[in-house]
């Protein structure tokens, strides 16, 4: 598995013997199936949903729509849950959405210090780094240092707002539209929007 900074350190967050967990989870699943507590086909459907249907492309479409449609953007900033539901993205871990807008003078960053709350309905399931102790511990005390690790150096006069997701409210960062993107279609804009930009650890670039 390839990583940016530490090519061999991925196991830091997975430092268990995989075969042991494979066996344990398999044993648990067969017990629960045998007792009639879970339907194995439902498990397949749950996995398929988050592997193939619900992911950061959802959020990217929301962002692109907000960039091209000022009325939509206003609705998104006023009632994100309803505005996102207009695009049919609803449900689990997106029941109560708030969108926070980046500007040249304001940068938003989302974290969950207590567990790993994340807006599944628009971003899918969180990446390992978002759930990791380094990110959860440092995002609130040293957001600028964290952003620097992601390659984003913010000038001192930019206000950084960190959103600690301690309730069932989920935050989506509305990144700045990149300069010189006027000619791009909504679809082309959506293709530029990354998961990291919607968490707030990156900007959107052409």
């Amino acid at each position: 598995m390839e990583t940016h900074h530490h090519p061999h350190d991925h196991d830091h967050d997975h430092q268990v013997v995989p075969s042991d967990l494979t066996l344990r989870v398999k044993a648990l699943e067969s017990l629960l199936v045998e007792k009639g507590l879970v339907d194995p086909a439902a498990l397949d459907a749950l996995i398929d949903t988050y592997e193939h249907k619900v992911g950061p492309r959802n959020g990217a479409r929301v962002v692109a729509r907000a960039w091209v449609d000022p009325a939509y953007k206003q609705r998104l900033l006023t009632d994100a849950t309803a505005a996102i539901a207009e695009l049919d993205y609803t449900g689990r871990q997106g029941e109560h959405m708030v969108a926070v807008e980046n500007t040249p003078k304001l940068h938003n960053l989302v974290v969950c210090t207590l567990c790993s709350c994340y807006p599944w309905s628009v971003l899918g399931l969180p990446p390992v780094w978002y759930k990791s102790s380094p990110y959860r511990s440092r995002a609130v005390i040293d957001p600028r240092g964290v952003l620097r690790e992601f390659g984003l150096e913010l000038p001192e006069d930019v206000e950084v707002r960190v959103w600690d997701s301690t309730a069932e409210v989920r935050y989506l960062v509305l990144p700045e539209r990149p300069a010189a993107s006027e000619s791009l279609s909504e679809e082309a804009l959506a293709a530029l929007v990354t998961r990291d930009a919607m968490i707030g650890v990156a900007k959107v670039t052409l």
Partner: protein
Amino acid sequence: MNGVHDMGGMHGMGPIETETKEPVFHTRWEARAFALTLAMGAWRKWNIDASRHARELIPAAEYLRMSYYEKWIAGLVELSIEHGLVTREEIDNGAPSVGSPKAVPPLTADKVAKTLAKGGPASRDVAIAPRFQVGQRVRARNIHPAGHTRLPRYARGKLGAIDRDHGVHVFPDTNAHFLGENPQHVYSVRFAARELWGKQAAPHDAVYIDLWDDHLDPA
């Protein structure tokens, strides 16, 4: 509880390691662990707050060692035993006890899409007056409950201001212990970074934390 899960502001956790082209699940057991947790939740024997608390109860050294979905599995096993869906003996043996009844799963494949789309809102449609208004100065309570709380340690005793009112939501601190939903207003509270961390923080930065009426006092 003042557990290691409440890690906002801690040092020494190492660098942030990112992956390019990260898969949704790294192994099949992660995918199955994720799905098992959601499917077992459909029995409605516990709630999301109790699930979080079950993971917080993992001993600190184990919590830091375990990967995310390993914690999920540990929490799921404990909740399933505690709420009588399985016995520890069955977990140890990997097979149902002799004579144990066969249940009918509440979440079947045909219901998955609808169930996920519906979600489980934490809001409650009850007329409860907010204790605070937008703009009002508040102080986070200096409390240290041994049980579940969503008030992080780094904010306790600190001064902030109500930024927005999210409406009436279930109160996790009681709901996690099945002591009632105790619905009340939850707010986004703005804390100046320097109030939380002192002069080392940038002067205009801020941390916004979602806190409930029972976490706050007027200031």
